[in-house]
């Protein structure tokens, strides 16, 4: 009995010693974060320069609009706003939000209103609430005149006529005549029709092909027409909304995809609207598939629409255009094939591709898209011969298709990086499905996968 007790005690003691040793040496959980949650960012806020940007992510549309307007009013100082660039995401009830904008903004304020896909960007980051986001830029600075014009594309005889009518309305609304060419035009339209180039032709008929028409097409992450274009008076789904801007201040802009041009090129022999049927005399999808190394056809049936967009966003087509003097420019058009195209071998595109177009395969990485967040505003400042401190405000457009190609963590960095470069210059960024801008010396184009920014200086 005594012998057994001694043995049990010795065994227990040994187990305790070994156990204590293992416990002591066993590492503790190291997953504890090294840093606490982020502190609130100190925004590069500028106040009292006659321009203010406000935003809100409140669930209630009325409260969200009120918060955004109040924030913008506080930031713009004592100036009286005369123009509102009003944006909301497609997740809200559009009529409710638009109604609140009209109700809460003084009737004297012109409204250029549009929807944004996914979220809205400002100096303080990417805003995307539980329901959605609302943002507004109020401009009350002197030496700036605005005139808005909007037409229903479905009601116009031709897209060219729609363009002409909208720009004429905008010029008239600004109290100017057609002889007074605006410094630039802010454009917003429907993503549905694919006749944006014709619309731009119509605008060019009135103000010339060298006037900057910059903006983006409304859009969302589905093909449901939840997008809107709206002014003080009217709301449209298939509208063309233009704002003619007159100023004696400096204006700078950038409109870039920044993609590399590869050695793969061809001629679109057969196309209609946004669908290319033949490239180099062969089915367009087969040629594009070969250009991408031959793996695309397998992916078309396996990948989701969004995942497929991620692939094509980094390998778009570049359409080559030239002016009368032979000056060459390339703008990006994103292919968006679907499983149906495995039968007809056609290649649907996110922008129109006229028959006979000369195309090149472009290539990029998501790093390229991220770096545009700083490079685009820098280019805009250079173009406008101004420093960030000289700038009054900016309007930025980012393509949703390009954003698809970014890892989930990266998109929110874009407005922060932009804010780092613009050093607090108020800006508002819209996420679009098709971007319009000027290939300098050639013409305004409707492209995809582009980031653009227009900045107006203080001087």
């Amino acid at each position, binding site marked *: 009995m005594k012998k057994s007790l001694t043995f049990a005690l010795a065994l227990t003691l040994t187990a305790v010693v070994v156990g204590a040793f293992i416990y002591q*040496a066993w590492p503790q959980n190291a997953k504890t974060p090294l840093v606490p949650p*982020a*502190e609130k960012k100190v925004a590069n806020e500028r106040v009292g320069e006659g321009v203010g940007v406000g935003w809100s992510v409140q669930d209630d549309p009325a409260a969200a609009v009120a918060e955004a307007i109040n924030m913008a009013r506080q930031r713009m100082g004592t100036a009286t706003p005369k123009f509102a660039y009003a944006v909301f995401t497609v997740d809200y009830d559009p009529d409710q939000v638009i109604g609140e904008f009209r109700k809460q903004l003084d009737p004297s304020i012109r409204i250029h209103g549009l929807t944004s896909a996914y979220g809205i960007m400002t100096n303080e980051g990417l805003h995307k609430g539980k329901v959605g986001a609302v943002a507004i830029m109020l401009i009350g600075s002197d030496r700036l005149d605005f005139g808005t014009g909007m037409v229903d594309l479905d009601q116009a005889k031709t897209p060219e006529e729609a363009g002409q009518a909208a720009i004429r309305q905008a010029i008239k609304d600004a109290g100017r005549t057609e002889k007074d060419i605006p410094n630039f035009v802010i454009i917003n339209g429907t993503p549905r029709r694919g006749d944006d180039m014709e619309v731009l032709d119509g605008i060019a008929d009135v103000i010339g092909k060298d006037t900057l028409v910059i903006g983006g097409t409304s859009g969302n992450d589905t093909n449901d027409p939840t997008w809107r274009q709206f002014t003080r008076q009217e709301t449209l789904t298939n509208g063309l909304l233009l704002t003619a801007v007159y100023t004696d201040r400096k204006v700078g802009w950038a409109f870039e995809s920044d993609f590399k041009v590869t050695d793969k090129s061809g001629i679109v022999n057969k196309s209609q609207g946004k669908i290319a049927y033949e490239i180099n005399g062969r089915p367009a999808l087969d040629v594009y598939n070969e250009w991408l190394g031959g793996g695309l056809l397998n992916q078309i049936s396996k990948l989701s629409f969004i995942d497929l967009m991620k692939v094509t966003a980094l390998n778009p087509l570049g359409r080559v255009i030239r002016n009368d003097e032979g000056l060459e420019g390339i703008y990006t058009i994103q292919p968006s094939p679907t499983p149906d195209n495995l039968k007809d071998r056609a290649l649907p595109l996110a922008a129109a591709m006229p028959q006979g177009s000369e195309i090149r395969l472009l290539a990029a990485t998501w790093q390229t898209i991220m770096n545009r967040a700083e490079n685009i505003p820098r280019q805009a400042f250079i173009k406008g011969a101004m420093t960030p401190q000289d700038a009054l405000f900016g309007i930025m457009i980012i393509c949703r298709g390009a954003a698809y190609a970014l890892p989930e963590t990266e998109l929110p960095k874009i407005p922060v990086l932009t804010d780092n470069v613009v050093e607090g210059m108020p800006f508002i960024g819209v996420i679009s499905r098709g971007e319009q801008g000027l290939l300098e010396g050639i013409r305004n184009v409707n492209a995809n996968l582009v980031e653009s920014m227009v900045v107006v200086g203080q001087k």
Partner: protein
Amino acid sequence: MRTLPRIILGATVPILVGAIFTSYFSIYQQVSCARSGLIAQYQDTANLLAKEVEVGYYESKWPFENLASLTQKSDFQFWWIIDESGHIYLSNDSAYMGTDAASYFPQINRQPDQEGFVSAGRNGGGVYFKNFEAGQKQWSFWLGFSLASLNQIIQRIVLVNVLVALVSFLVIAVALYFIIRQAMSPLDDLVRGTRTIAEGKLDHRIDTQGGGEFGYLATAFNSMAEKVQGQYRELEAKVKERTAELEKASAQLAVEKKSALEKAGELERVNAVMIGRELKMVDLKGENDALKKQLGDKL
């Protein structure tokens, strides 16, 4: 037998204690080595990326993809690019961008061209920082890591060391048992031999092949047993001799006794004859007396 367990216990307890201490210091050494190796890896990575960031600054191209690849590491915590004002210019997590870096790690040296490791958190994690100049501005690249992978390494090291220690201990204990038992077996023979001899089997002898002290003892034991057996034999012989003498004397005594008995019988027979005669004589005398009486009467 109690000696064997005592010897084994006395030998294994120090071995166990030694194994624990050896394992502890071995683990400490291995963990230190692994930790230094991991920190060195992060240092190399941070230096490489800081260089890429510096080059990227001049080319207006941040190396987003290489920076993003850092986040795949299991023990990655964060990377920050700090601008001249001390704000986080770029981070893996956009929530930290624009915030004051020093508010998280005030101990990090922001002097130009400095680099180093600042320990933070548990299990040796921390921040490797590298300060550099680009575009006439001071920048700093910070790479935070928890050394979570060191945890796995430590766990492996602890388990392997404890297992090795336990197996070694068991092997040593079992080996000791057999060695000691082997060494102690002559003693067992001695004990058994003593018992056997005590039982009277004086011809029992012990194996003396082992040599050593136990061999000497066995030889001495056998010698002692030999002597005891010899003395016993002598004693036994003397007993036999005495017994024979006694038996001879006894036989003679028996013969003499028989002779005496025979003589006594003869005497008894003579005596009986004599007594018979005597009795006859008495009878005759009686008859004589009766006759005399009769005769007297008649006479």
